[in-house]
């Protein structure tokens, strides 16, 4: 695309000065303080973690194709599901949307040059690297067979590499805290003065709520893991019943973090969906303030429900009752979001492009994942379903069907912004279809199995469950192929995609006012402040093959001031 004077005025003149090309060499990436490059590095990192843990998942599913031993011993099976869980949770899902997509998009949505603390941002990334390296060390030395939850007293007595793994999770926790701190401060202090709280895109609101959880919950995980390490090294007797300690205390501490962590995983996904639904319906989001406040409500309520992981751990009846009741109340803000998304779709001008397909499948899968959570929050049914495949299916519907789907949707949405090129939309949709079908085939049978009593974390099972397990295994491979295809399409686009303009989808939030890919300083022209969901302000310009602000089309538009001279 040739940079016409008008395009320069609207999107800056960053053709040759974009963040990917402004400097080269490996050092310019490893020591970069640019949030966009850090976001891209995060993206590569978490994708690596996703594929590693995904391979573990496929190995697990292959082993479970029949009820007898195929190629994994029981001990190896235990290690495999533990590593799958630990790497997926700590190294992939938690940093996936906030640290990869959020890093790239958040400052741009605020019209800022960078996050508030760029060095801390890079530090977060390196902490992520170190933490993941520790997890891999655990994997390569003695393995890990405690489950990702590290429950005591088993984690104190097992001979596997618990210390490496917990150190890894500890360091990853700090990576997460610093990202959260950075985003929170950025949203508070880096916005333009004219951008009030209710002019923020909803993705920002959800990242803000996520940051609150990261800041308030993760330190508790930190101290818990530190105490667990101390317990293992010198038996301090806080969690170890052999010395008068209380193993249930560990569960309380652990879930005080890990339940809110579930919302660290899902809230950013909800934010992404709010953007996608609105942009691809080309309609103002319905119930903006409800969606915004429901994010905060989920974040706060999320702190009060950790006990629902421990209904069978010997809590008092009163406590279980209270936790159950509060658990139900989380359904309210979640449902508020879903209703608002549906209302946004109503009479919208829906474009079924790849990101929208992911968004729609998110609503469906998250709906199932959320509703089955109510079964587990109900005390009487939970006794029956506790520790069965029903639980496994439930949280995979939310984590994979929710977060992974939203991550892919978000990637397809912002990919043209990140790399300036368009992907093959048809193949993107095929990938989405495979992910959707494969996912349902994998996990829907698990609901059935679970409700019939198939316990989770078992390497062997009775013949009556074989048909479900086989369906699930086949589904897992389809899901794997779908995800692989989805990433292949994206990678292909980086090198061979059609070049596109600054705002190909007609989105109204500020990040689309930069060139694609953005310049080093994000915006080297004056930003036109408009409401994030005011799509009527956008018109398609054929000459430039992109959407532009309607204001610029009308002749009486005042000249925008000359762009600030930029260094570099």
């Amino acid at each position, binding site marked *: 695309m040739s940079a016409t004077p008008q395009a320069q005025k609207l999107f800056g003149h960053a053709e040759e000065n974009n963040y990917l090309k402004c400097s080269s060499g490996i050092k310019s990436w490893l020591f970069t303080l640019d949030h966009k490059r850090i976001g891209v590095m995060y993206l590569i990192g978490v994708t690596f973690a996703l594929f590693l843990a995904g391979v573990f998942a496929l190995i697990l599913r292959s082993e479970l194709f029949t009820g007898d031993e195929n190629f994994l011993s029981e001990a190896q099976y235990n290690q495999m599901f533990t590593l799958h869980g630990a790497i997926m949770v700590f190294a992939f899902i938690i940093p996936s949307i906030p640290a990869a997509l959020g890093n790239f998009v958040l400052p741009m949505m605020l019209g800022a040059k960078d996050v508030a603390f760029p060095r801390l941002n890079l530090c977060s990334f390196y902490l992520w690297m170190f933490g993941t390296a520790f997890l891999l060390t655990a994997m390569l030395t003695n393995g890990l067979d405690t489950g990702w939850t590290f429950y005591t007293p088993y984690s104190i007595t097992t001979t596997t590499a618990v210390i490496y793994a917990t150190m890894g999770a500890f360091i990853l926790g700090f990576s997460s805290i610093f990202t959260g701190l950075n985003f929170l401060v950025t949203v508070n202090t880096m916005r333009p003065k004219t951008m009030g709280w209710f002019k923020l895109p909803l993705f920002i609101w959800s990242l803000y709520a996520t940051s609150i959880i990261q800041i308030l919950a993760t330190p508790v995980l930190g101290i818990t893991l530190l105490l667990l390490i101390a317990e293992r090294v010198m038996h301090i007797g806080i969690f170890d019943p052999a010395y008068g300690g209380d193993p249930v*205390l560990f569960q309380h501490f652990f879930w005080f973090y890990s339940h809110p962590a579930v919302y660290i995983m899902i809230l950013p996904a909800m934010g992404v969906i709010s953007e996608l639904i609105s942009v691809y319906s080309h309609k103002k989001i319905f119930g903006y303030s409800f969606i915004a406040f429901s994010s905060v409500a989920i974040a706060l309520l999320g702190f009060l429900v950790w006990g629902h992981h421990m209904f069978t751990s010997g809590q008092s009846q009163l406590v279980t009752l209270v936790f159950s009741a509060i658990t139900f109340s989380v359904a309210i803000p979640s449902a508020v979001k879903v209703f608002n998304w549906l209302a946004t779709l109503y009479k919208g001008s829906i474009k079924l492009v790849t990101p929208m397909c992911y968004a729609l499948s998110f609503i469906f899968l998250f709906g199932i994942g959320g509703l089955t959570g109510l079964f587990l929050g109900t005390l009487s049914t939970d006794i029956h379903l506790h520790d069965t495949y029903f639980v496994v299916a439930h949280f995979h519907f939310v984590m994979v069907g929710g977060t992974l789907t939203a991550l892919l949707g978000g990637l397809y949405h912002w990919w043209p912004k990140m790399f300036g090129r368009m992907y093959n939309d048809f193949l993107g949709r095929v990938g989405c279809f495979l992910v959707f079908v494969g996912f349902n085939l994998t996990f829907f049978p698990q609901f059935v199995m679970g409700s019939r009593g198939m316990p989770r974390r078992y390497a062997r099972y009775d013949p009556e469950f074989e048909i479900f397990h086989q369906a699930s295994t086949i589904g897992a491979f389809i899901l794997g192929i779908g995800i692989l295809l989805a990433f292949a399409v994206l990678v292909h686009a980086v090198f061979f995609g059609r070049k596109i303009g600054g705002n190909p989808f007609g989105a109204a939030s500020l990040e689309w006012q930069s060139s694609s890919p953005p310049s080093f300083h994000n915006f080297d022209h004056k930003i036109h402040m408009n409401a994030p969901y005011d799509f009527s302000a956008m018109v398609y310009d054929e000459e430039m093959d992109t959407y532009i602000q309607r204001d610029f089309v009308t002749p009486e538009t005042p000249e925008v001031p000359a762009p600030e001279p930029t260094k570099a």
Partner: protein
Amino acid sequence: MSTVEETADSHDEHDDDHHDHGEFIAHHFDSAEQQFDSGKLGIWVFLVTEVLFFSGLFVAYVLYRYHHPEVFVDASQFLDKVLGGINTIVLLFSSLTMAWAVRAAQLGNNNFAGKLILITMICAAAFLGIKAVEYSHKWDLYILPVSYYNYMEGYHPEAESGGIAGTLHISKWLVTLSMLPLLCLTLFSAGAVAMAATGKRLMAQFMLGLAIMMSGYFVGAFAGQTYQNWHEANLEAEEHAGDHGHDGDHAGDSIATGPDSTSERPPQIGVFFSIYYCMTGLHAIHVIAGMAALSWLYFRCLKAHFRPDYFGPVDYVGLYWHLVDLIWIYLFPLLYLIN
């Protein structure tokens, strides 16, 4: 000019470019005010995470005290209120000098701010010195986390190890603990001499400051050990003087006296010391981190970086230091002043 340079440390290299923009304003901020506000909010949020980081230990404390109140009453008698009290005063005083340093930096008086920060650093090191005396004394008596806890009534380590030069008894654990500070002291002193010899005045001054800080540790350790020895001697004298040791008016006495107290000792007393070591140990790590941060400030004061429109770092480290102080203010009564 390559853009990477600008991303890397825009502080020092681009003074001329950013002259109107202020010397220490990072490129992505619009104004000094925005930068200061961001930093201030950031440090407050960080302090919140610190409080939550300690919260796990406080919850464990509350839980075990609720379940075993007698353990806490009994075990806290092993902790020396005087040493703990001195440490509290030392930290409170360091908070005063820290707050004063913030004010001095705010007024642009780098020289004075540097001196106050140096005093704060010395206090921090002295705190650790006294703490080391407390730790080593307990280790001598096998008062350890629960799995290693092996305290025996009437056991006197001095009888075995013997004092150094017969006058000042120094615990062998204290010697071990002091190795690292001694190494630091030597290195910093040598560094100061070397820098002075090569004419690097600023670095020499900085190294000297660090050496002075480390000597604070030895002042604390020496004072603590002297008190400890005096206290032990007193106890022994009392023990010999009469057999009315466990009157109860002097909490510290009842430990070393009367064989009848053995049977009353609760079995889970070691858990108290697990919690004690975790809490004070984590606090000590924070003190050490604070010393590192304060050293950085000291260096920047020597370089006269701070002025009325740029004193953020002193303010932020000051807030952190107050939090470290505050945590100790909670730890002291919770651990030492039971009963």
